[in-house]
């Protein structure tokens, strides 16, 4: 009890310094947590992927389409339950900065994505309207789209201005689903192309293939690719997760940079914290000598220094971790446009705690050792 009291009193001796150090820790641990969550957000698409969906695309690269007649051939493969079409549209809404995903899809697309919840009435309204489109909740919130709105898009891949009518707004089944996207009828796209660009008719960007079981998925993927081997458009079929991770991998040096930088902030705060502890220990050389003269062992002195460091880090780190969900919510409000899914994971909280502990220990090592080694006579001679 006495020890704890002494540690607490020591920590509070320079209230301003302790307060500033705690504030610095708070900022650093929060920044670290946010960066970890940003990296998680990058993987949100892959996390949300279903293991019973496969993606079939042209093996050369995504910019090459597949013929429409592959649909029937894929459906006839053993283990396939459903096949849906999807084309990347790449239109611009008002300004190139307003980026969001738009897909031209077949009517059965939503059956393969049970995580997108759409009221039956809206679904029927969409199916009946050739120019109708569906909007995800996150996207609707960003631009304030409502059912019945007309949504004009300027095509980059498909020239011209395209107009769509919002017929439904779908919700994600939970917070981790990205609903920042728009879907419209593949048939609308195809029939418009039939009038304007005949050579681009009946082409499909990717096929989404539903399979019966997760275990059967790899063999189905192999069977699909074998069917189209040596054809004009060879396919590459992979799980939805692998497909999504492919996108993440293309910017993996950015992710690596963010990861490195998230440790730089810990290094910065370590320097600040080590400085605080070094200053405190230096000021108290005479006191440590007195304690030693009274018979306290070096171990005790070292413990005092470690204890003080631990108290400061526990407060700073604790407050940061406790406030994390609120900070993340605020960040999402501010930058939700870029990170539709921004959830703080338990792992992130644990890593934050680990970092605070690491800083507490590392900052106290040098001052603790030198304090423990203080020679009584020299220490007593030292002034303040």
């Amino acid at each position, binding site marked *: 009890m006495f020890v704890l009291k002494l540690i607490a009193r020591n920590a509070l001796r320079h209230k*301003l*310094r302790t307060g*500033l*150090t705690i*504030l*610095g820790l708070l*900022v*650093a641990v929060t*920044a670290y947590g946010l*960066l970890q969550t940003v990296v998680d957000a990058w993987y949100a698409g892959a996390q949300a992927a279903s293991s019973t969906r496969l993606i079939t695309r042209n*093996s*050369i*690269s*995504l*910019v*090459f389409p597949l013929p429409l007649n592959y649909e029937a051939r894929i459906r006839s493969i053993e283990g396939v339950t459903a096949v849906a079409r999807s084309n990347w549209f*790449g239109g*611009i809404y008002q300004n*190139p900065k307003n*980026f969001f995903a738009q897909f031209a899809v077949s009517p059965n697309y939503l059956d393969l994505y049970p995580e997108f919840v759409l009221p039956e009435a809206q679904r029927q309204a969409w199916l009946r309207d050739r120019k109708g489109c569906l909007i995800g909740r996150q996207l609707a919130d960003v631009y304030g789209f409502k059912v019945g709105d007309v949504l004009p898009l*300027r*095509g*980059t*891949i498909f*020239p*011209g201005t395209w107009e769509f009518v919002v017929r439904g707004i779908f919700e994600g089944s939970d917070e981790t689903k990205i609903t920042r996207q728009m879907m419209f009828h593949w048939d609308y796209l195809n029939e418009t192309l039939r009038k304007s660009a005949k*050579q681009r008719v009946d082409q499909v960007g990717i096929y989404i293939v539903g399979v019966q079981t997760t275990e059967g998925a790899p063999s189905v993927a192999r069977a699909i690719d074998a069917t189209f081997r*040596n054809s*004009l458009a*060879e396919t590459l079929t992979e799980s939805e997760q692998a497909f999504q*991770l*492919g996108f993440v*991998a*293309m*910017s*993996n*040096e*950015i992710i690596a*940079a*963010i990861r490195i*930088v998230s440790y*730089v*902030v810990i*290094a*910065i*705060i370590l*320097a*600040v914290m*080590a*400085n*605080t502890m*070094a*200053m405190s220990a230096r000021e108290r050389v005479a006191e440590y000598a007195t304690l030693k003269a009274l018979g306290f062992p070096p171990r005790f002195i070292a413990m005092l220094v470690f204890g003080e460091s631990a108290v400061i880090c526990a407060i700073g780190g604790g407050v940061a971790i406790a406030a994390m969900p609120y900070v993340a919510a605020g960040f999402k409000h501010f930058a939700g446009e870029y990170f539709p899914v921004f959830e703080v994971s338990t792992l992130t909280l644990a890593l934050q705690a680990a970092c605070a502990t690491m800083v507490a220990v590392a900052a106290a090592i040098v001052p603790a050792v030198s304090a423990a080694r203080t020679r009584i006579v020299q220490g007593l001679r030292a002034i303040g």
Partner: protein
Amino acid sequence: MGIPLSYIIRNLWTRRLTTALTAGGLALVVFVFATVLMLDAGLKRTLVTTGEFDNVVVIRKGSETEIQSGIARDQARVVETHAAVAIGGDGQPLASKETVVLISLLRRGDSRPSNVVIRGTSPMGIALRPQVQIRTGRAFRPGTSEIIVGSSIAERFDAAALGGRLHFAQREWTVVGVFDAQGSGFDSEVWGDVEQLMQSFRRTGYSSMVVRLASSDVFERFRADIDADPRLANESKREQTFYSDQSKALSTFINVLGLTLSIIFSIGAMIGAMITMYASVANRVGEIGTLRALGFRRRAVLSAFLVEAMLLGLVGGAAGLALASLMQYASFSTMNFQTFADLSFQFILTPAVAVQALVFALVMGLVGGFLPAIRASRLNIVEALRAM
């Protein structure tokens, strides 16, 4: 009269450990800040040097990139016969009709494929880009399945080394040369014969065209004519503008992310500087009293402590910048969001970046040292002298 600088410097030197730790924190922030600016400078330089000023890119109206664009053969003929297009020694227009698509290749040491730009071009297309020089091997021969690769592709993709074979579009393609495009975006591309590639990819039209202007000042007329011609649905941009426009999204992203981080991190470092400066004031109350008693004004004490804080910032800034300058040996590659293709670029330390980083460091020192310096200047002479 001011307090001598040597007094200030010695104060920092006396408390070496504290000075080093505080400057270390500041240095790390400056390192992050400078690296971000260097990355952005590198990205901009890469994409700006990709273009020649007198070259003009023609794409389909509304498409943002060459990949999205398409130009029919008859349209291409209309464009290349325009009077503003320069004529070569052999009487042919200096125009290259190209097809640009993406292929996925495996990066060295990576199991996931990256998208790489493959450009179908012609000997004319190579001639139109004087910065492109064959480094090893030779140029592709028109009419064959030969390809040449940019230097950063050759380095990062195993299959794309000299003599390597790539399989796509039902054909084997042999790498017969590696070209150096002096750090421009072409270094991240694969080039081959346009007719062969179009045939293999079963394309009937080109993606884009590059033409050399007869003289610099005819651009506006050329642009207006292409825009107005009812046979065409194309638009034209100077090659330099075209490529630097493609850096915008990635550049904004790098800047927003990097600068937000730098600002948050700087809070931590400024708190460090503040702690150090407060301690520096507290340890020297007696000294400050003496200085005041000797006749130094409050303003002199204030500026002495501010200069001390800024020196601390400068030391940190210089260290951070030195650390960041090592990054010039590294290169960075990522997907350009706009073109969807892999692009590799360098960290470039420009004088502007160095100045910005040092100013940032000085400001951090100044902000951190401001409150402690005020406290020092407000000390009462008698009480301060008693503290001795």
